[in-house]
């Protein structure tokens, strides 16, 4: 293969642009780290365990935000995963052929709605509904820590619900892809042994198990980084609380709300440090998710093309 000068220039030039993408990732990490040095230097590890976030006195503890992000995401996953898997199963296994396209399109529509619109709906429609439900909760249950506190409408519970809705299409579409690629032979094998339809579906899910976990993690990654919808319904109060009623705060939300108010450099660096952690966490979750999905897809598309006569196998 002759490599003319033109080819070399071509490879080099296009390579520069490709390198820019690489530079972007590295650059983000680097700059976030560099611009949080003040905070890292001053607080060290205590930044992540401190509960007090007081910009006025210069005391910055980010624990409430970590808690808020993790708790809200966890709750969102608990709600959304069964629904997302149910949708994936329904569309790929149970629905009449006619409905398949429209249902797929509708679930993808959920992903297309901008975050701010979710937030708007959350504030004006969902929050009053949640507030009514909070009031209706029987007093005996309200004694439990998870349901304690005044019924404000805004709070961890509302945030979890909105996050769950936003995350559903992500988990669902990947799970659907995976189920579609499970070889028919697996289900037939189950049916031939007298399995009911649900049992055969379970076999299919079992075959794509790793990918389904990847799909769930993809949704988790999405939930961890969501900003606008959450900040509009979560109450924005930096406290650590188990209660779904309690207004709390997430990493993304505090950055969104306080970034422009950061009067001094330390404040800014503290916020950027939170951004750095968010960056790292979401990368880790996404990488794991993609690895799981990729390895499942590879296994499934490695279906051996059935040769007319396969004589080269070792003796049985």
């Amino acid at each position, binding site marked *: 293969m002759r490599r003319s000068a033109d080819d070399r220039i071509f490879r080099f030039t296009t390579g520069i642009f490709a390198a820019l993408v690489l530079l972007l990732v590295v650059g983000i990490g680097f700059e976030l780290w560099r611009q949080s040095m003040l905070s890292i230097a001053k607080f060290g590890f205590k930044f992540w365990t401190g509960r007090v976030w007081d910009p006025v006195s210069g005391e910055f503890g980010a624990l409430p935000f970590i808690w808020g992000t993790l708790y809200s995401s966890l709750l969102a996953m608990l709600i959304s995963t069964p629904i997302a898997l149910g949708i994936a199963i329904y569309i790929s296994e149970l629905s009449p052929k006619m409905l398949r396209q429209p249902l797929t399109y509708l679930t993808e529509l959920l992903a297309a709605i901008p975050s701010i619109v979710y937030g708007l709906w959350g504030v004006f429609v969902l929050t009053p509904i949640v507030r009514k439900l909070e009031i209706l909760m029987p007093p005996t249950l309200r004694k439990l820590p998870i349901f304690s506190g005044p019924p404000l409408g805004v709070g961890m519970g509302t945030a979890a619900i909105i996050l769950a809705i936003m995350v559903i299409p992500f988990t669902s579409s990947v799970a659907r892809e995976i189920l579609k690629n499970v070889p028919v032979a697996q289900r037939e*094998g189950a*049916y031939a*042994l*007298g399995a*009911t339809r649900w049992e055969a579906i379970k076999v299919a899910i079992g075959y794509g198990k790793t990918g389904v976990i990847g799909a769930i993690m993809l949704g988790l990654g999405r939930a961890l980084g969501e900003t606008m919808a959450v900040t509009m319904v979560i109450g924005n109060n930096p406290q650590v609380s188990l209660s779904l009623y309690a207004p709390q705060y997430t990493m993304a939300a505090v950055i969104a709300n306080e970034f422009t108010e950061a009067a001094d450099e330390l404040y800014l660096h503290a916020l950027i440090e939170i951004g750095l952690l968010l960056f790292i966490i979401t990368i880790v979750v996404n990488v794991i998710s993609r690895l799981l999905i990729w390895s499942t897809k590879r296994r499934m598309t490695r279906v051996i093309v059935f040769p007319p006569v396969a*004589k080269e*196998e070792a*003796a*049985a």
Partner: protein
Amino acid sequence: MLTTIDMERLGATATPSAASLESMNAKISVRDFDFFYGPAKVLHGISLDIPDRQVTALIGPSGCGKSTFIRSINRMNDIIPEAVAKGTIAIDGRDIYNSDTDVVSLRRRVGMVFQKSNPFPKSIYDNIAYGLRIGGMHNKRELNGVVEKSLIRAALWDEVKDRLHESAFALSGGQQQRLCIARALAVDPEVLLMDEPASALDPIATTKIEELIWDLKVNYTIVIVTHNMQQAARVSDRTAFFMLGRLVEYSDTKTIFMNPKEKMTEDYVTGRFG
């Protein structure tokens, strides 16, 4: 085409009462069976009786409907949305296409082994135990017993007894197929359907499967689809020749191969086409 060894085998398989259809124990009776994929009719008025505890082979060129037919016996075709069946297939006298047939329990009575082995991504043990577990058997000791028995019956026990909890995918192709046979046997079927069970295997593995079929017929009614005529001649008691969705000729294997009544059959078995 047919070697002398095959011919001797043929002589051995001709059962004494093969001459009369009526004196045979018909395990499966098919009458006027039609099958449609949507508007396309793929099986036309199939009628035959499959005897109990013998091996019946279905032969014919590609696309002749033999796979569709065999999959109708355990109603596997139900999974396909546009599939429509007409006529009757009766097992032990009861029509399985009757509206109150319990398809789930039908499939436990009529087991199936597929062309390409399809073990689940579980251990050898769990593959075989799968059918038992969904049937409600959870007692460890019972499961162990049935798993062992099935593996012995499928001539696989000695090769895997020390690694029952390894993944099924670690086995070779031929072993995987015998695993699938063991899995099918575990739920104690009466009929075993085999859709080209050895076509993906090398000659040695194929021989093992054929020997297994020979041993199994003592206890099970076996229906086997094969495109390999020597295999049909070696292994079966009766043979049915299908062509373009129609049953052309059905008789004991010796007759089909040595003395076929229909010209089409003769043309096929002597290799003039197909």
